[in-house]
């Protein structure tokens, strides 16, 4: 199974017009009565927007698992299909589904549900506002899921850490013809280089100095290339090893255009060793070396913008990504890997640290998403030929305080500090907007809008 198509709904784009229901009813019934529609748009007054009741074609469908007659099953095409021959009309499936995706039709005399119109869902065709899209959201996940996981089971990350997610997905895609460098930090701490003679991954891996990752990879990549071999030189480094003490070697390799894929997992500090401050730590943040006391209120300086610094090296490819936007991450990893065949590719991943930033371990992806939605972490990519483009709209962000309030490391902030961070976030967003606006697109100037290629895959 490599693709499970689904119909995605964007509540913010839906105006409740009901065209989708009409289209479905026309396709699925003789009289076009919207009561026959398999999709229902409903007003969610509490949330203040429209919602959808529609079959999600779940991977492990509850409707099927509760069905006592085996009348519902997920097929190889990804569609949860209803079998009229087996159905006993008990309607337990309608209770099992939490999405309102299967319902009893009085006209039909049995349950009905979406079958995606054999690959051309009429509801999607009818929607003029882009609120409904027929996408294969899980396609990439599943395609990559079929690739070998080159890390061993049981890496020793903190509970709720998203770095293991980054490591496994990255190495699955990059593949076995790789030499992996994991400089001191959380990633070797989780066991990439293993402990006690047992390795944490199935590719050649080493523990460079904190300072010299890009330089060692330079020698490895060049020597293999000299011998006619195309070996991917991959770094999975933290922000300290990339941007602080490791920055000289990173900068040198980028300037020379070494063919390296350098992934920086930015958790804004030296989290593996007890959450000390780094150059990537946010202004005002508590860390073990920027404590809160009568004379000090966390870090006194703004974080340096490492991905922008890398962009100014004229790398082949630079991008920021987040585990809350995996499709975007996949697309960027794909681009970075390809670019690393020609020159230096740098991927900067925002990686909230459950223990060092002090938030519940279940909230990691929520924190990551909120960072992006508040413009605290802006997603963009830079290609040498095309310049910088924003990966999603940033002109209508959530309040920065929505992000700050999630994290214990900001608990002590006073209004002036909050205002400082808000100002800095706005300035950074403005800088990025201007950089993106510098890039002409079909004679126009882009300001704060995503590039076409990225817009499709976001919000999955």
């Amino acid at each position, binding site marked *: 199974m490599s693709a499970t198509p689904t119909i995605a709904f964007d509540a913010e784009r839906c105006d409740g017009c009901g065209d989708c229901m009409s289209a479905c009813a026309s396709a699925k019934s003789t009289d076009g009565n919207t009561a026959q529609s398999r999709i229902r748009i409903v007003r969610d007054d509490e949330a203040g927007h429209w919602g959808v009741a529609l079959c999600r074609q779940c991977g492990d469908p509850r409707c099927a698992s509760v069905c006592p007659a085996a009348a519902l099953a997920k097929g190889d095409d990804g569609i949860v299909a209803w079998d009229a021959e087996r159905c006993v009309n008990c309607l337990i499936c309608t209770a099992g589904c939490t999405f309102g995706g299967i319902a009893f039709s009085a006209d039909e005399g049995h349950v009905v549900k979406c079958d995606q119109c054999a690959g051309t869902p009429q509801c999607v065709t009818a929607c003029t506002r882009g609120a409904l899209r027929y996408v294969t959201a899980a396609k990439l996940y599943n395609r990559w899921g079929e690739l070998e996981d080159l890390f061993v089971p049981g890496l020793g990350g903190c509970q709720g850490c998203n770095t293991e997610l980054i490591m496994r997905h990255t190495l699955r895609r990059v593949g076995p013809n790789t030499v992996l460098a994991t400089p001191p930090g959380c990633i070797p701490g989780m066991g990439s280089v293993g402990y006690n003679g047992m390795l944490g991954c199935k590719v050649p891996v080493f523990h*460079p100095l904190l300072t*010299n990752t890009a*330089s060692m990879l*330079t020698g490895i990549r060049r*020597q293999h290339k000299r011998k006619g071999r195309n070996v991917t030189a991959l770094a999975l480094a933290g922000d300290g090893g990339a941007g602080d003490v490791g920055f000289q070697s990173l900068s*040198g390799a980028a300037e020379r255009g070494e063919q390296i894929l350098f992934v920086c997992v930015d958790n804004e500090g030296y989290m593996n060793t007890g959450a000390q401050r780094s150059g990537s730590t946010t202004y005002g943040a508590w860390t073990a070396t920027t404590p809160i006391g009568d004379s000090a209120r966390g870090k006194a300086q703004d974080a340096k913008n490492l991905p922008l610094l890398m962009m100014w090296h004229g790398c082949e490819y630079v991008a920021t990504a987040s585990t809350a936007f995996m499709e975007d991450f996949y697309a960027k990893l794909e681009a970075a890997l390809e670019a690393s065949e020609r020159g230096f590719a740098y991927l900067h991943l925002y990686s909230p640290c459950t223990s060092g930033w002090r938030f519940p371990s279940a909230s990691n992806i929520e924190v990551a998403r909120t960072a992006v939605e508040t413009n605290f972490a802006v997603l963009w990519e830079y290609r040498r030929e095309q310049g910088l483009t924003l990966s999603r709209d940033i002109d209508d962000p959530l309040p920065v305080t929505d992000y700050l309030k999630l994290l214990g490391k900001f608990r002590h902030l006073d209004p002036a500090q909050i205002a400082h961070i808000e100002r800095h976030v706005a300035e950074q967003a403005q800088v990025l907007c201007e950089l993106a606006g510098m890039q002409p697109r079909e004679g126009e100037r882009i300001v704060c809008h995503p590039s076409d290629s990225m817009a499709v895959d976001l919000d999955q």
Partner: protein
Amino acid sequence: MSEAVEKIAPSTGSAVAKKEPRILVCDGNEAAAWGVVLSRPDMVAVYPITPQSSLAEYVAQFVADGVLDAELVEAEGEHSVLSVLHGAALAGARTYTASCGQGLAFMFEPYFRTPNLRLPIVMSIVNRDGITPQCVWGGQQDAMTVREVGWVQLFCETVQEVLDTIVMAYRIAEDRSVMLPVNVNHDGNYLSNGIVRIELPDQGEVDDFLGMPDVNWHAALDPDRPMGVDPLTGGATGPGPALFVGYRRGHCEGMQNALRVIVEVHEEWARRFGRRYAPLVEEYRLDDADHALVTIGSMAGAAKDAVDAARDRGERVGLIRIKTLRPFPLDAMVAALDKVRAIGVVDRAVSYGWNSGPVHQETLAALQHCRHRVPCLSLIGGLAGADLTQTHFERAIAETAKLLDAPCPREPVWLNAEDR
């Protein structure tokens, strides 16, 4: 240099009958660069620093001219230079670099790790004194400061020896019983810039002598042989202290094996190329000597002249030149020291806490193994490029001779203290 490049086309590498050596007139940095050419490294990374810079320029020009077929990495500093070579060696490359002084200090973090990774990297140190006071001149404070790191350390006396030793260093480093990085030291200014006539060995004969690179059989970063390089040992936990001890002991064994290999390689070099160097310790007019100087590096030339002059006056004095400082050639040194009744050690560096020179301290340690107690004086000179002339060594001999009848002073003799 361009003339030399034209004369010496890259060899086909095939074994050929012994040829007449080509003659060059060049300084030690160019000679070192020719040693690099002859050794055919896969990768060279050099960051320029006085007085090594012209060496870096020669190597770059040789690559540009196609005389040297090597990857040249223009790294942004010495720290990265050696780090690049770590990666290259683990990918199977024969490698070369050169540095000195502050460059070596900046390189120290990967330098510190290189021998523990057992990477047979060859690196010239164009010896330079340390700052402060601000100084770009010769001196051996750089190499002496890192003598406990675990590299093999060879010190050359002449420009010809620089070239020959660089080639020999690869055989020593890549010997499977050694597998250690080698520093080939040549004194800044005196050897780096002194121009003399040298002979350039034939490329084919050097190819036969060196063989193919044999660099990463023990530890590799290669998808065809996936392995983890240098995982956490767990220290005293996990497999226990024995694992760590095993690595340290293996390193010590490699060092001791190097003593034998250095001798064998020098002997083979003499057989093949006709130039014989004392591999560990050179004894000069020592057999019937009452007292002797111990020297290291290029200063031995002037010191030998002073010994000759003293001999002409009837003084029974000799000289011991240390070529191999690490591993320390204990047996050879003890055998030499046992022949005399007083020793004067001339250092081009200081050992601060001992208030003497580092080679003096090394000599004192060796004297422990001698049959008799031999007084041993520290003399320090040649710092920051100061000239050590025959006159200075005549004084050194005179100071040493005093030990035959008088107690040995604990204070060092500062040979250039009165030079203006």
